[in-house]
């Protein structure tokens, strides 16, 4: 015997709709269902025109982020039992909407790339020199920040992202900080200049909402605010230690 829940979903077809609208569906739900199961039921059985992103169903790919009853949610992880009879699903806040529950991701990808998320070294190691050696303690400096699945829930929760388009945002800064804290990396100076540039980490007002909604406990707020301290130290030392050419 299954319960019925009413899914109220934001629809938007750029070819047909002036503006987004709402559409309701009655969905028979099973007790162990997640929100994503309800959406897939709608797509499979009720309305094949519904568009939404999803993939792994196990909270590792980051595809299925949406707003559920006004809060950012990873819909494959979020149990329907957490909600009452009415489940309102809208696309991620702070993002332009391409169609229905699908948001424009390219802006996010650009911010990720902007922090140069790769090991930067002045001189590549020769094969004969062997591998990098990193202790478990050194791994702990950044490991937590490497767990991001790029689900973008933090961007939806962040009041600064919605108001300041240049802001790099939680995931991008956490990713850049991850590399800054990696002992193999020598690109801190370059990244800290990016962190003090147009996308400035100092735009963060420490709402901490990014960390509240992160499904992987990355704690991007910690990363961003640690990055502020590193950026200040880098700024201060730039007066003492001259910066040469590239």
């Amino acid at each position, binding site marked *: 015997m299954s319960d019925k829940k009413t899914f109220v979903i934001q629809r938007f077809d750029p070819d047909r709709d002036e503006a987004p609208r709402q559409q309701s569906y009655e969905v028979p739900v099973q007790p162990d269902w997640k929100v994503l199961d309800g959406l897939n039921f709608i797509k499979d059985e009720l309305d094949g025109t519904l568009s939404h992103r999803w993939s792994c169903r196990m909270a590792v790919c980051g595809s299925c982020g949406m707003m559920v009853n006004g809060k950012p949610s990873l819909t494959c992880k979020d149990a329907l039992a957490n909600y009452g009879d009415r489940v309102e699903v809208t696309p991620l806040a702070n993002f332009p909407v391409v169609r229905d529950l699908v948001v424009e991701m390219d802006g996010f990808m650009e911010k990720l790339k902007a922090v140069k998320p790769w090991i930067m070294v002045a001189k590549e190691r020769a094969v004969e020199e062997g591998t990098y050696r990193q202790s478990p303690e050194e791994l702990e400096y950044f490991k937590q920040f490497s767990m991001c699945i790029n689900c973008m829930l933090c961007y939806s929760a962040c009041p600064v992202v919605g108001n300041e388009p240049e802001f790099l945002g939680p995931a991008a800064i956490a990713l850049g900080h991850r590399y800054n804290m990696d002992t193999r990396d020598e690109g801190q100076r370059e990244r800290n200049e990016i962190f*003090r540039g*147009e996308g400035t980490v100092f735009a963060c007002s420490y709402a901490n909402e990014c960390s509240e909604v992160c499904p992987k406990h990355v704690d991007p707020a910690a990363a961003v605010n640690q990055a502020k301290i590193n950026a200040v130290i880098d700024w201060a030392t730039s007066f003492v230690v001259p910066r040469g050419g590239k």
Partner: protein
Amino acid sequence: MRHLLLKLEPVIWLLFGQGIMIGTMLLTAYLAVVGVAIPLGIVSPDALAYERALRLGSSLIGRVVLFALIALPMWKGAHHVRHLSLDMGGLSRDAVVAPILYGLALLGNLLALIAVVRLH
């Protein structure tokens, strides 16, 4: 203006951080004693009678503490009010709002310096 604000951000953020940290600790005592306890008679008004208040305030450490008490909260205040404006969709007016707020804090800091120096 945006470029200037970006260049000054590390300093402003440091001052804001101290405004919260030190400013909060100092303001707690000031508000509790001067603002509440003495007016309500919980502490005798003689504690900050003119002679004693002046003696404490015009000592070297007194001047430093008073300066910090006045100056640092202004940076916290200015920075947070600016962020409040930005949160309310005020990015386009930030080039005007931010200099006004930080200018106010700077002016307050200069007046604070004069105020503690002229204590005698």
